[in-house]
């Protein structure tokens, strides 16, 4: 199990650093590509090679994830500006009272453009840049909408703070629902409020902690490679009961469901040879969660560092080693209408030791985010056999990168 830790952490590393790195270097160029209020269209010419992007990054002057550390809350809910990259990554599945089902993705990326703040008297002065991605899948209506935002971490446009928790880019925000209350319950930002809008969608949720937070890797240090410092600090909330409302084109739905939060900060970058990844976060009806990722290499094979983990109803982590303890097999394909890029669509996921055999199907086929950095991230339905051979259902999120324009040449 310990052998698989680095690879598991490594999986989660690349999936977001790619995006965050985009903010750091190409993202600003991409701002133009998305032409402000209409970021829907992005053609492949404006995106760069993921590896080239990450390979070019200089880590000098930044803090590094060198060793296991004690996480301190509430501070660690907030930003770690000395690290190059950081994110607050929330996905979830919701159901309205009428039975209408939705999926959502809400991400705020932070990226340090330079190790040090430039200083100066202006409120605009900062080395911190923020990018936000927000997507809503109207599963019942078979509709998917996404939007991205960029802003500097200055002049109140975007930022992050720990106490009381508030992470925001313009009016998108993840914050402690009751700032006064957090003062008393020091270590927890819960309940949290999540708010985002765009493309005729308005989302407002209150998130509860559900299960205790999970420190990934070795007590939260997610080792990425052999060299010291090639790692991140990483924790997650894998089952957050969510409640609130979704407004879609003026129609408001009261919704409830489950959400998943990933928190990670680091400075290091992707390694050579990796072209993309398939990432699965599944929440099953019996209280189990499963996270699996397959890291793909240039030759099309899976990196042996691909990995998986199970969380039991009590919040305990069970690591799975890739290839024997967990397998992922695509069962279908889907082509992007933008350029015909082919994505896998539908999978069979098995955990042979435990008898798990799950079928994972996209809730809506087209959940591609056509933003500066194109990728597919969407709600999925899960059905099959779970723990102790019982038939099980569930919902979750899948992220597929490196298939279209962005991240691959």
């Amino acid at each position, binding site marked *: 199990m310990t052998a698989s830790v680095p690879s598991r952490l490594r999986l989660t590393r690349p999936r977001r650093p790619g995006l965050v790195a985009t903010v750091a270097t190409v993202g600003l*160029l991409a701002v133009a590509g*998305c032409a402000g*209020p209409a970021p829907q269209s992005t053609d492949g010419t404006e995106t760069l090679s993921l590896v080239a992007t990450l390979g070019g990054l200089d880590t000098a002057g930044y803090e590094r994830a060198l060793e296991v550390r004690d996480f301190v809350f509430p501070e660690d809910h907030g930003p770690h500006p000395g690290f190059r990259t950081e994110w607050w990554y929330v996905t979830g599945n919701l159901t309205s009272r009428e039975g209408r089902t939705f999926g959502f993705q809400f991400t705020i990326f932070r990226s340090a*453009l*330079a190790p040090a703040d430039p200083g100066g008297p202006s*409120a*605009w*002065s900062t080395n911190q*840049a923020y990018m936000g991605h927000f997507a809503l899948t109207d599963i019942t209506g078979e509709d998917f909408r996404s939007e991205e935002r960029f802003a500097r971490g200055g002049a109140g446009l975007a930022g992050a703070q720990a106490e009381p928790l508030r992470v925001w880019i313009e*009016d998108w925000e993840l914050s402690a629902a009751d700032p006064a209350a957090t003062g008393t319950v020091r270590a927890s930002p819960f309940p949290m409020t999540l708010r985002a809008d765009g493309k005729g969608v308005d989302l407002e949720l209150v998130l509860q902690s559900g299960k205790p937070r999970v420190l990934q890797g070795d007590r939260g240090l997610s080792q990425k490679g052999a060299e010291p410092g090639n790692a991140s600090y990483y924790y997650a909330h894998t089952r957050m009961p969510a409640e609130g409302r979704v407004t879609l084109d003026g129609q408001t739905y009261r919704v409830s469901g489950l959400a998943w939060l990933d928190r990670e900060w680091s400075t290091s970058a992707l390694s050579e040879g990796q072209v993309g990844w398939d990432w699965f976060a599944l929440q099953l009806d019996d209280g189990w969660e499963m996270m699996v990722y397959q890291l793909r290499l240039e030759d099309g094979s899976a990196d042996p560092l691909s990995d998986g983990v199970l969380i039991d109803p009590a919040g305990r982590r069970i690591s799975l080693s890739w290839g024997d303890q967990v397998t992922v097999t695509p069962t279908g394909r889907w082509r992007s209408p933008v350029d015909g890029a082919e994505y896998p669509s539908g999978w069979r996921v098995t955990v042979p030791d435990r008898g798990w055999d799950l079928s994972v199907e996209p809730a809506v086929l087209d959940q591609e985010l056509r933003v500066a950095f194109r990728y597919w991230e969407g709600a999925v339905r899960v059905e099959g056999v779970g723990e102790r051979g019982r038939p099980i259902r569930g919902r979750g999120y899948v992220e597929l990168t490196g298939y279209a324009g962005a991240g691959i040449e």
Partner: protein
Amino acid sequence: MRLLTKASLRYLTHHRLQLLLSVLGVALGVAVVLSIDLAIQSAQTGFRISAETVSGRTTHVLVSDLGSVDERLLNTVRIDLDITASAPVVEGFATSSVLPGRALRILGIDPFSEGPFRPYVAGGSTGLDVSELMTTRTGVVLPASLAEEGGVSVGDSLPMVVEGEAWSVPLVAIIEPADELARAGLADVALMDVAGAQEVLRMVGRLSRIDLRISDDEAGSAELEAIAGALPDGVGIESVGTRSETMSGMIGAFDVNLTALSLLALIFGMFLIYNAVTFSVVQRREILGRLRALGVTRDEIVRLILTEALWIGIVGALLGTLVGIFLARGLVGMVTRTINDLYFSVSVQGIDLRPFLFAKACVLGVGATLLAALPPALEAAGANPRMAALRSVVEGRARVLVPRAALVGSILCAVGIGVLSIPTRNLVVSFTGLFFIITGLALITPAGTLVLVAAVRPLLGRVWGTLGLMAARGVGASLSRTAPAIAALVVAVSVTVGLGVMIQSFRGTLVQWLDGTLRADVYVSLPGPTASRAAGTMWPEVIEDFVGHPEVSGYSTYRGMDLVRDGEAFRLVALELDPRGEGAFDFLEGSSSDIMARFRAGEGVIASEPYVFRRGLERGDSVTLSTASGDRALRIIGVFYDYGSEQGTVMMSRSLYDRLFDDPGVTSLGLFLEEGADSERVVGDLLALVPPGRAVIARTNDTLRSASLEVFDRTFQVTAVLRLLAFVVAFVGVLSALAALQLERARELGLLRASGMTPGQLARLVVTQTGLIGLAAGVLAVPMGIALSIVMIFVVNKRSFGWTLNMEVGPEVLLQAVGLALVGAILAGVYPAWKMSRTSPALALRGE
């Protein structure tokens, strides 16, 4: 080739000088019109491209009358109102010692907001690394052309003076704009992050404006409405078109003035062509008569003459185009500098060679040529085939025409006066009236010449005997040929006189005004991009130090803001006056002490003459200003003479200003010194008090006065050049007409030589005759020039700028005019005289 065409071609090639001068006339006229057009167009294009490049795809802007808005307004718009396409802009000007003579336009932006606006910032095509820009304090990005000019490369420090403060800013990137347009638009732009721009421009917490991109539909209107509802007092929303129209409208009067002057040159060119064609017709009267006898129809004759003119026009226009481009290169610099001196900073990247302007100049040139050739062509065709040969008949007819022309001329003058008395501020109307008068005067000229020559004839007879009488009679006798030449010369000289008197009067008035206005001993301001207007905000501690100088006994402070209201720009000034400075204002009406008492008490504002004139206001009316607490109407308690700003100025006491606006800044300072203090030395002391890294301009009364006059002189440089060009055109006209006249008299002169006249006597006869014409032109030009200057001073200038000028007629302008005309005319006689005196009388007698 048809024989008729061949005949006319051979005629023209035999009279090369005449042909050359005709072509030259067209060419000069076309060149002047084209060059002025090009210069103006280039300045406007420079302005427009730079404005468009700087505003990118912005549709609307949020601006405040006071020049800046609170930066928090952006959050209100972007976050509360959810207007995603909104961008902060901090703008200002800087100079750099490595880029001498340039005003750098600092453009402070937030790269993350730029997507919808400025592709060169966000597009990636320029290769701009915006993270470097954001994370390097006061980092600056220059276009490649500027970096090259300044000899700086990435990583270097660029020395820069901004609002009087010296900076050394790191050059973080050099951009190479992808297209020519962006390259031109960015030619003077120093791109900075909004944070850095705020810091160097001392605008922390403020934005120059907020750029918006609002769609032109219902949703857009709703957004505009929402924004309008959320704006604080003093902040307005303007469409970008309105804004740049206001800016280019500022130089409208300037443009019209120059265009009118350039058209004048073309009209002189027309005179020249008329001269030349008339000559060629007169000279060929006999030939034309023979052709008519042979059965050539009138139409064919008209066509023949017009075809000749057409070719002259075409060749002249083409030549003029080349000369025009050449001239434009010189003029564009002057025009740009004037705009920079008086209006706003504009950078002009070369000449905007717009095909339309070439077409226009060529059509004007060719059209003018044909128009000028039409009367002689018709006359040639109308001539009786046998009678045509009889010159005395023609001359007799010309003499009948003289009083008629004078009558028509008087009528035209009356029409011109009528047009001028139309109460309008439209400059085109004014110039139309002026042109009527000029044309009218030109028509009166021949009659004037006859009267003048008749007057001097006895005198000439006494001095030179028969020869003098012959010369005098010759002028009158050959009037059909000399009249256009004289008219052209008179008009050219009178326009020279008119412009001269106008400029002299203007300068005199300005001197007088400066003497009255500049009351303080030392003036202190910040270095800025526009020479005629102080800008920026002085440091309070520096003011304190200056005022505390032991030899400073009192001071006035000045706060000036350039505002735009209802699409019209003007300057708002807050004054805190030392009692010694109160007498500086000269009011159109009302007691100065009463007005100043009310001014001090903050009972209202005083407005400059151009301000009230442009808006049709008068004393007692009110001025509405957007103050910190919303719109406020303020009564105009006095109107003062002012020549500092053609846009107009509104002044209020500092105490009133402080009540209305939240702006403690001071733009410039006037210091009054103790009796007997040496202001030069005090200026030295004061400059020594300025902390290192900061710069102020401290000038004594005298220095400021002469600096102001320098700006004035620069402003009128273009006018002076045009005046000169117009004169050259007319001069060439006279030269060609008179020279041709004398050459044509070859047979007559040959007869005189044969009858025993010496070459010297002949030369004297010829030169006396042309000299007489010159003298007549010069003398006639003086009253006409003064009449023109009266029109220019009291009608055109008043209308374009709203300035009342005191007319001043200096003898040197008049003597210069008469002298020029005389010299020109005498020179015109020298060549034929020389040629005739070297020719054998027998040859001359033989004729064609």
